[in-house]
């Protein structure tokens, strides 16, 4: 498995400087069923890592194990290591709600809270004193980074439900960005969106990857090809291979990868 990866940092001194998120032999199971069977994968700042694979491959579970959303249901069991900037996150000492502000998540269905646009964006900021300072600034910044500012700047006090689907999803993106996370996890964010909204989000990600680590789970192989720098292929809870995107799509090392990409199954 290791041979498929770009060389991972093994030098302890480098851990402090490693900015990004990595897992080491991550095993996840849900009441007796093994969902992830030992994933060792890393994603670094400055790149977009996309994860492709058929349904049931464990992509969403992998994503949710990174920001400890699996904690919400006690039937999930996690073993192995997950590290953010070198610091292990599955530890009793780490307050999970602080972690989740550093690792933002965008879901596949845009879920806007039943409040105004502004209140949606400020929701994360209002949670603690530090966030409340310079709230308007941060809201505007988040909206600009999600390419939504121009469309809603005059409508901030309208209910968020008034927006179109594509706008709502960008709102969800902006909402996580107001918290200035280090890592951004996106779970099929463009499923069900029209091509223009999809392109806007992909453009936003391209701009954001400079400062963030971005992991994009997608069912759409073409999207992975055009929007990411590295691509990982998951199948039945295992990481089959991970490479630079252009290499994976032109010269995949595993036959299963080639079969999936060419549509022979999925």
């Amino acid at each position, binding site marked *: 498995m290791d041979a498929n990866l770009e060389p991972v940092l093994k030098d302890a001194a480098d851990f402090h400087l490693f900015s990004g998120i990595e897992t080491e032999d991550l095993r996840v199971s849900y009441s007796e069923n093994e969902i992830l069977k030992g994933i060792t994968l890393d994603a670094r700042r400055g790149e977009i890592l996309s994860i492709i694979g058929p349904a049931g491959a464990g992509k969403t579970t992998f994503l949710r194990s990174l920001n400890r959303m699996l904690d919400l249901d006690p039937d999930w069991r996690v073993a192995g290591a997950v590290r953010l900037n070198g610091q292990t996150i599955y530890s009793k000492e780490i307050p999970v709600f602080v972690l989740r502000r550093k690792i933002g998540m965008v879901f596949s269905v845009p879920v806007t809270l039943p409040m105004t646009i502004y209140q949606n964006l400020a929701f994360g900021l209002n949670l603690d004193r530090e966030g409340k300072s310079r709230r308007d600034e941060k809201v505007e910044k988040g909206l600009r980074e999600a390419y939504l500012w121009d469309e809603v700047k005059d409508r901030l006090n309208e209910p968020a439900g008034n927006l179109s689907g594509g706008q709502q999803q960008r709102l*969800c993106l902006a909402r996580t960005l107001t*918290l200035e996370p280090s890592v951004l996890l996106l779970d099929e964010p463009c499923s069900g969106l029209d091509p223009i909204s999809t392109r806007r989000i992909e453009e936003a990600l391209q701009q954001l990857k400079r400062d963030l680590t971005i992991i994009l789970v997608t069912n759409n192989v073409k999207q992975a090809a055009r929007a990411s720098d590295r691509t990982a292929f998951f199948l039945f809870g295992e990481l089959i291979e991970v490479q630079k995107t252009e290499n994976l799509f032109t010269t995949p090392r595993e036959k299963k990868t080639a079969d999936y990409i060419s549509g022979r199954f999925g």
Partner: protein
Amino acid sequence: MRSHWLARTKYTGGVLQGLTAFACLIIIAIVAIIIGNIVLHGMGKLSWEFLSQPPRDHFTKGGIFPAIFGTAALVILMTVAVIPLGVATAVYMHEYAPKRSRLVNLVRLAIQNLAGVPAIVFGLFGVGFFIEFVGRGLDRGLYGGSLVYGQPAIIWSALTMALLTLPTVVVATEEALRAIPTNYREVAYSLGATRWQMISRVVLPQAAGGILTGGILAVSRGSGEVAPVMFTGAAYSLPELPVRLHNQFMELGYHVYVMSTQAFDVEATKPALYSTVLVLLMLTFLLNFTAIMIRARIRKKLRNGR
């Protein structure tokens, strides 16, 4: 032959339809008669004086203000006890307790079925537990044996009523909580909210309408049920308003009961009696109507997807 068969079918068809429609008519007529009768005989004495003055001359003159005051005081005390407890119980069962806990399901079952237990049984509990056990205990501990809390008092009636209406509030709150999509909770968590922040900023504001409905239904029941307060604190004729927790109180429903069964001059007190019934009826209807309106508004909001 064919036309004969058709005719017979139409005839019997009409009969069933007519019978069931007739049943509806009977029910509507009964309700109309009851309300009409009460309004007719009760309107006469209804006036601002009636609502704001205390009674005189064995209830033939004056008003029923003390009963209104007593009912209001009872309901307020009951609400202060039942809403926090009921909402907390529902929030605990829905948000804090482990999802598939058998114990929680058992408790939920018990609460739902407690709603069918007769009110008088709660009254029995109120007398036996609150007055005799807790009240006497308080008296021994705080008042050296003299009779202060070990007798009928508004606090005991209020607590008994709170137990009676607890299931209503819990069920209404849980319904409201269940109606909130899990997505909202997930989103709140993913933005870094703690459990209490998620509950207080997302869940409770959304559930507020349902909680309010449950509260109003509890209040409506609390102002109308007589059996639980009969021996736990209500009294027929009192010289003073209840200003202490250990005072007895006058109550509209109890007043109606005693006046109609034990007053010695039925004819003379009849107008006052009817007016009291009318006041009680109007109060109950107002409360129920408010609850229905709120519920309708919530349903409309849900349908519009907001």
